[in-house]
């Protein structure tokens, strides 16, 4: 625990009380970041900075506001908080706005989630430069004479925050992170210059793949885009690569929040306990994954976290309901948002599944698109490979899939054995059947 931050947070809570707030919640966070990128075997950008911020929620006379500032001097903060409370009192009363019942703070697990890499402080400038140079070299080597440009990057940091409420919550979070990757542009026919990338994110340096693997994977992904074209519109099975599943699931997730339900912007509002996907669709929210990117011991309301089954064999079991919207909905709160999302992996590899399907589209990325949380309608551009005879035969571009989430997730026929480790959405690749793929 950072004592200085802890003392300032407690002071801000007291100051808000003295200035007329009935209750308050204060978080003070600090983050140090370093970013380095290389292009043409020399540094392209170097960036380094430390940021600090105070975030305060004010509850005054039944009114509510939130404020943030980066000026953490006490004299400045005192004025800032006083002004914020004065402004808050001008708003309309909101009987649902209170700090949570402290009983939800109880039961916090005492365990090390592994969110801090103890070696991070020893990560030297030279090591950073060497990492980026090695990624660039690997990408250039693998890309060969088609390469127009490679930019390799690393970004790492350390952050910590202290949160307190006037009704007794106190929490401290600390983590480190590493982002490493590259993007590559290669020459295709005519003026087409396909651009691919590969980035990984981890909390511990030990979990990063080697620079050679990162660079080579970037090159592999980019080369797979060569010769892309549109094929005719038809109904086909699709396999969505593990890393991309989260993008399309995001539209579904949006409808799982208490706010969406209370504001009538959720196609799932009346679906709890019903089948919203096929039997292959199971979703677990697990905040206790060691070194997981979404791991946490308490949530945004300060609630002690729990492992939850959100969807079980296609049946919707739970929503993300925070304290405020639980009061509006008159429901029991759960948690305000996801931690690590786990879809239990299947038994077969993508390669085996592709062989079995014979013909379909392997979707490796998305472009544009959106999802309507009120109706569940979604439409999104796709990038990937047509496979025939179980093997990729043609890169595709300028194509699209459209569906309604309630129909789409019922078309899930298999999940692969490859959960993606570099995201809080640890999804395996997924197979859907009977999807209209729009092209020519």
């Amino acid at each position: 625990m950072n004592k200085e931050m802890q003392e300032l947070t407690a002071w801000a809570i007291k100051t808000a009380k003295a200035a007329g707030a009935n209750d308050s919640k204060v978080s003070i966070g600090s983050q140090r970041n370093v970013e380095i990128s290389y292009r043409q075997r020399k540094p392209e950008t170097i960036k380094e900075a430390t940021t600090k911020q105070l975030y305060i929620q004010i509850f005054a006379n039944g009114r509510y506001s939130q404020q943030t500032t980066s000026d953490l001097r006490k004299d400045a903060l005192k004025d800032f908080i006083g002004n914020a409370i004065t402004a808050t009192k001008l708003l309309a009363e909101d009987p649902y706005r209170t700090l949570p019942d402290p009983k939800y703070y109880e039961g916090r697990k005492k365990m090390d989630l592994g969110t801090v890499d103890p070696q991070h402080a020893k990560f030297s400038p030279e090591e950073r430069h060497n990492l980026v140079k090695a990624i660039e070299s690997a990408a250039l080597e693998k890309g060969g004479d088609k390469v127009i440009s490679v930019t390799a990057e690393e970004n790492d940091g350390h952050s910590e925050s202290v949160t307190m409420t006037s009704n007794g919550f106190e929490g401290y979070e600390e983590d480190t992170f590493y982002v490493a990757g590259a993007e590559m542009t290669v020459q295709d026919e005519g003026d087409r210059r396909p651009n691919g990338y590969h980035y990984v994110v981890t909390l511990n340096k030990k979990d990063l793949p080697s620079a050679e693997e990162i660079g080579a994977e970037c090159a592999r992904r980019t080369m797979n885009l060569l010769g892309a074209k549109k094929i005719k519109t038809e109904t086909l099975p699709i396999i969505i690569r593990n890393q991309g599943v989260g993008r399309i699931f995001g539209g579904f997730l949006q409808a799982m929040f208490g706010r969406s339900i209370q504001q009538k912007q959720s196609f799932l509002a009346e679906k709890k306990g019903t089948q919203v996907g096929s039997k292959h669709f199971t979703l677990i929210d697990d905040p206790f994954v060691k070194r997981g990117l979404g791991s946490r011991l308490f949530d945004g309301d300060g609630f002690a976290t729990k492992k939850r089954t959100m969807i079980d064999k296609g049946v919707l079991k739970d929503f993300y309901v925070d304290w405020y919207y639980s009061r509006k909905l008159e429901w029991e709160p759960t948690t305000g948002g996801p931690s690590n999302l786990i879809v239990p992996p299947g038994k077969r590899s993508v390669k085996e599944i592709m062989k079995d399907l014979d013909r379909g589209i392997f979707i490796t990325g998305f472009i544009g698109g959106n999802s309507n949380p009120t109706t569940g309608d979604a439409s999104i551009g796709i990038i990937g490979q047509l496979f025939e005879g179980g093997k990729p035969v043609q890169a595709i571009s300028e194509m699209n899939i459209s569906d309604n989430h309630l129909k789409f997730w019922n078309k899930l026929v298999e999940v692969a054995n490859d959960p993606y480790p570099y995201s809080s959405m640890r999804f395996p690749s997924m197979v859907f059947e009977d999807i209209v793929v729009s092209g020519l």
Partner: protein
Amino acid sequence: MKKITRRSFLKTTAQAAAVTIAAPVVLPEGWYSFASPAPTGYFENEFDISDSLCQKILAKALAKGGDYADLYFEHTISNYIMLEDGKVNRAYSDVALGAGIRTVKGDQVGYGFTQEMTEESMLNAAGTAATIANAEATKPASKFRWIVTKSYYPTDFKIVSAPLESKLPIVQSVNDKCFSLSSLITKVNATFHDQQKRIMVVTSDGAKAEDLLPRNYISAFVVAEKDGKREQAGWNFGGRRELAAYTDAAVADVAKKAVDSAVVLFDAVQPPAGEMPVVLGPGLTGVLLHEAIGHGMEADFNRKKISTFATMIGKKVAEPFVTIVDSGTIPNLTGSINFDDEGTPSQKTVLVEKGILKGYLHDKISAKHYKVKPTGNGRRQSYQHYVVPRMRNTYMEAGPASPEDVIKGAKNGIYVEDVSNGQVKIGEGDFAFYVSQGRLIEDGKLTAPIKDINIMGNGPKMLANITMMGSDLEFFTGGGGACGKAGQAAPCSFGQPTCLVKSMTVGGRR
């Protein structure tokens, strides 16, 4: 060095603060009457950022031999007030204060920033920026000259400091108006956002510029219910305006557009999937231009040869009735700027003239690379980010055809009215944008509404496939538009006349 006071920072926090920004001037109607943004010396007065301190920081930034360095000082106050379930019952405020220091060596960039406006912190940030170079120190200019430009928005506005009480009724009236327009409306979310961004740029080549950028908007988002079905839609209005812009008529217009857009969707049908003619309606569909063409013409992508437009300067890319412009000088639009974040005065930049690709959007790095003058497109999200070439307000100029004839010209296809969430792959030129609302075109006439479909295309192909251009150029006057690039968001807008693209891929389900 004497202690920095931050007087204004203390005064300008949160909604209730009383802020004195500059001597008030009563502005007459019309953009051409905006007062020139004469320098006020704000950062020197409030934070003791003197010329001698700037020279010291710039010298540190160039201590290892950079070609160029600049300093960017920012003090931004943002307020949001929001209505949900009939009451204006939440407010968010944010104060951002800091300085960013950039060192440029060729096309390499070193960048450091600090939230503390102290000499020590800024010199440390300059030391970080300097590490991009590795040679003998270079020297910054010994004197700075103020860059004074025309103004394309009110620079002595008082919207942030206006009492909260004066803004609450605007938000409440958005709500009330929406409910009064249709009995199908069941939920309304309304927002009023206002921001003032005070910046100063000081460069090692002797330029110094100061600006105060307003940004504000009102928005309505509604949910309608009919026969057990629900639909949603929203609209917003704003830009770089004064509080007086948010009249009853402006509120009524936002409410009507949101409500009409939601209610019509109950009759929406799914269009067929595949390639077909697409007519872009005027105004908001300029998102497509922004994505499909605009990004590919940002010069950093071309300097690195990773844009599909990298070798097309001087070539025919469209029919002669197609002219594409990016301008920072359109009054009150969200993307307008008096000068960019490198101190280059704003301008109207022609990208495609009568079908010929004429040039790119430049910051100082790319301008030097191409041996041209910078175009005033060097922009950044905040002091925490370094400059990259960005669009401002991008539009196609009006063409010769009537909008009715353009629709007839499509014969059968789709007509796009409301779009969101576009994206482009710069190297391939492939793009996608999401049609929230539109119409089928059947036998040359607009028929059933359509919704929630993605449209895919390729930028150069789309440009070549524009076969008719309408005479009805409209600009999008919403204030919430922002473009994402390099992990940064920048306010922008766009304009578009009705326009026929003879073929694009429509992501239907049948």
